[in-house]
């Protein structure tokens, strides 16, 4: 694991996954959403269409613990990954709703030894909007540091 030197004046705010859900919004349980959909009726993109994001997090320096689902990288380091709240999101359990996934990019990459270990990612949170079939929002983060998660 790699410790990057923090180059910010203010320490990043420690947030948790609940902080990514707007106050008062009741998330649909994933298990229900994932249960028995008919193929043609199931929503292909996300189980919880109404998964709003917390706009105020935009541009904030935060640190968030989670598990890594690698997207891009080379044999040594991972440069792009999804940060998810529980292990196994990339394997067999129903995936978290989009407001419970953060798309992280880290410039020079971090060596991640094991996907089983939780890490804490520090960086600038962005609430990004992109145009698909319908306008979508989600969390992105430009990470500056990754550290092993300590309870």
């Amino acid at each position, binding site marked *: 694991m790699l410790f990057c030197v923090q180059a910010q004046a203010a320490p990043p705010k420690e947030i948790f996954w609940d902080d990514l859900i707007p106050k008062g919004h009741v998330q649909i349980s994933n298990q229900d959403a994932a249960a028995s959909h008919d193929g043609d009726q199931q929503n292909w993109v996300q189980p919880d269409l109404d998964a709003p994001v917390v706009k105020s997090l935009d541009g904030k320096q935060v640190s968030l613990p989670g598990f890594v689902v690698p997207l891009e990288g080379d044999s040594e380091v991972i440069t792009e990954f*999804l940060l998810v709240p529980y292990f196994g999101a*990339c394997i067999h359990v129903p995936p978290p709703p989009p407001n419970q996934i953060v798309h992280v990019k880290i410039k020079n990459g971090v060596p991640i030894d094991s996907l089983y270990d939780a890490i804490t990612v520090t960086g600038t949170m962005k609430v990004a909007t992109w145009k698909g079939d319908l306008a979508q929002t989600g969390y992105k983060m430009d990470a500056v540091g990754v550290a092993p998660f300590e309870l």
Partner: protein
Amino acid sequence: MRLISLASKSMLNRKASVLLTLFTIAISVMLLLTIERVRQEAKSSFSNTVSGTDLIVGARSGDIQLLLSSVFRIGHANNSVSWDSYQDIKAQRGVSWTIPISLGDSHKGHAVLGTDSAYFEHFRYGKKQTLAFAAGRAFVNAQEVVLGSDVAKKMHYQLGQQIVISHGMGNTSFHHHDDNPMTIVGILAPTGTPVDKTVHVPLAAIEAMHSQPKSTPRMIGKPKQPAGHTHAHADEHDHNSSHDHGHADGHEHHDSHNHNHADEHEHHDSHNHGHADEHEHHDSHDHGHGHDKPDTIAVAVPAPADLHGDLIGEPKQITAFLMGLDSPLYTLQIRRNINNYKAEPLLAIMPGVTLRELWRMLGLVEKILLLFSAVVVLSSLLGMLTTLLATLNQRRRELAILRSVGARPRHIFTLMSSEAILITAAGCILGIALFYALIALAQGTLQSQFGISLSISLLSHYELMLIGVIMAAGTLMGILPATRAYFYSLSDGMSIKL
């Protein structure tokens, strides 16, 4: 540092044994560096093979098998994805692009990959690099083919040449599709990935190859014959697309050399799959039908404008497809939906995750390799220790004389240990030189045989660290004889033992 010069002079005096020791160390250092370099390059060339792809989808098998067969051309897929499913998934929300892949045929030992124009547009390797053409352009109709750089180099193919794709995998096949010569219209720039060793053809060409009775002239988009001439894949899901079709009619295939052009023209009106184009193309090149050998005369590749034809045809199935999504945040959900796809059993994998799994599996092998080379290094250092201890006896007199002219025991200690350090350092330097020489020699072979591109680059941090560890170990080894020499009394060396 007088002691160093003294040590080196003393060593020059014992050239033979010192040189041997030095060589042993050099060879072990070379071995260690080479094994590590090849291991890392192999790993990185693997991880450079696919990039920017969110999901790879194939028939349900194993994650690693799907990754290996679809991207690395290692092994083969045991089943395929029906075209209907592909179209359905492609049309889902959140899907940005898809690249169909149809594998299982070969051209003189090179894999043939059927795809469409999305491949040249969306396929990424390395760090999201796009495929570039060294010459020519992408295919625009079913008679055109694009080569990877290695294929073109190895076979000395040029743009405009005609080649024939054979059925099934393997270096040779007795089931050629001679009646479907294809024109080389593009050659890709080298990528250092399996793309270099691949022959890219439109999906329609693969389909045409597989759905033709071999005794009639090739017609793209020919109406399907009843079973016997076509392969009812769609109904036969456990049937590997890459083997065994139509071998029943394979024996008729030798009669197919005298094509009846008139016959072909007759058929013409009934199909409009870019056949007219094909004909223009035939006129502009004057090549005969039904020859086994490609032309050896290169001709200019015609401009694509007037040749656009159907690239896809009517495939029943494909081997796999790559997907890009509007946002990576969709990946997990879409992957799950594909894995739970009702129409047929499919498997979607995230290449990044599966590669990690693969490395976790191969981690043990890697560790064993590292252990082996470490043991070789250790044994060479032990060899050095043996030599040093053995020469200690011969040098008792030398050391005693040094003591008698005023050297302190610590000087003796330094002298002895610096000798070990000098030998190790010289061994490392020679080893590094040998390592570069070996890489320069092996480069071509590794690239052509295994697709591992070794770069002659400076030593990485990791490699320098390995050298550092060897140096430290060598220094430690030197301490033992040095300590013994330290405690030798002056009288021990001066008195003559009989």
